[in-house]
């Protein structure tokens, strides 16, 4: 518990002595003072420099991250493999080549190129396209002319005389590839 000394108490001399003892300012030489000040200034300067270096490093890292993110975001996307140029019924070996090239280059590939339907576009799809290209049945179907090409785009009426000619034409066309299959 602290009690202030009353100057009007019975111990004025003691109080004065204590006041002198604790209120005097020691004389510090100006050289030591200057040296202490210099050391303090140097210590503070070093601390400030390290803080600035950390700040600059952070700013540079953030800038680099921003540049990389921008570069990725603005990277021109290469077009997906143009496998859609062929319908599944008339793939040829060029389709297999194009997909194989895109896969080898790690390009983005259209999901429509998942020919085997396993959810992944890979070499197995290339093989599936190549196998479809060389399938014999496909080419027989592919050889069949369309009704338009035959001029038979109108419905054939079996009972009429003119339809019998059309039916013969169809029969000839259908019979031709079958002969080739033997």
């Amino acid at each position: 518990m602290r009690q202030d000394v009353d100057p009007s108490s019975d111990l004025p001399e003691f109080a004065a002595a204590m006041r002198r003892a604790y209120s005097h300012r020691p004389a510090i030489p100006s050289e030591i003072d200057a040296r202490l000040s210099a050391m303090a200034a140097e210590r503070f300067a070093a601390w400030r420099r390290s803080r600035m270096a950390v700040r600059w490093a952070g700013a540079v890292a953030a800038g680099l991250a921003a540049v990389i993110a921008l570069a990725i975001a603005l990277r021109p996307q290469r077009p997906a493999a143009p496998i859609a140029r062929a319908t599944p019924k008339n793939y040829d070996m060029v389709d297999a080549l194009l997909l194989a090239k895109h896969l080898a280059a790690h390009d983005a590939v259209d999901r429509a190129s998942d020919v085997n339907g396993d959810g992944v576009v890979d070499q197995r799809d290339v093989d599936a396209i190549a196998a479809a290209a060389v399938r014999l049945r496909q080419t027989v179907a592919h050889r069949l002319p369309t009704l338009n090409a035959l001029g038979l785009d109108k419905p054939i009426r079996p009972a009429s005389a003119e339809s019998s000619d059309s039916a013969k034409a169809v029969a000839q066309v259908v019979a031709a590839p079958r002969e080739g299959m033997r």
Partner: protein
Amino acid sequence: MKRLSLLLPLLIPLLCLAAGPGDPAAGTRFTSVDILIDPKGQPLAAYQVEFTAEVGRVSLVGVEAGEHPAYAKRPPYYDPAALAGHRIIVGDYSLDPNLPRNRVRVARLMLEVRGQTKPQYAMKLMAAANADGKTIPVEMSLSEQ
């Protein structure tokens, strides 16, 4: 009975000869036909051809790879159902940087030819492309070994 016992030693060899299989090799031979493509200076990155034996009793028995390193690593693609038939579609592609630019054997077909009729073959180009997938003009030919 006595006659039969005398004839039996003569009949048995005759019956065996009659019942035995005929010479299976008579009139049957195996041959091979090379499919050659000349891309005329352009790199041949993909091809697809249809081969048909139009005359003669011919059966396909096998398909071999081509001679150029770009097409020699594996046999070309073909439909296995074509084996034992007389028509086949073969095709292949290559990502090899060193593609053939001159006349090259892209496939060899192994054939079984039955009978004395000389077979006649036909070939139809279905696709030929350079490394960019662009169609290129080529010349095809066959060479029977």
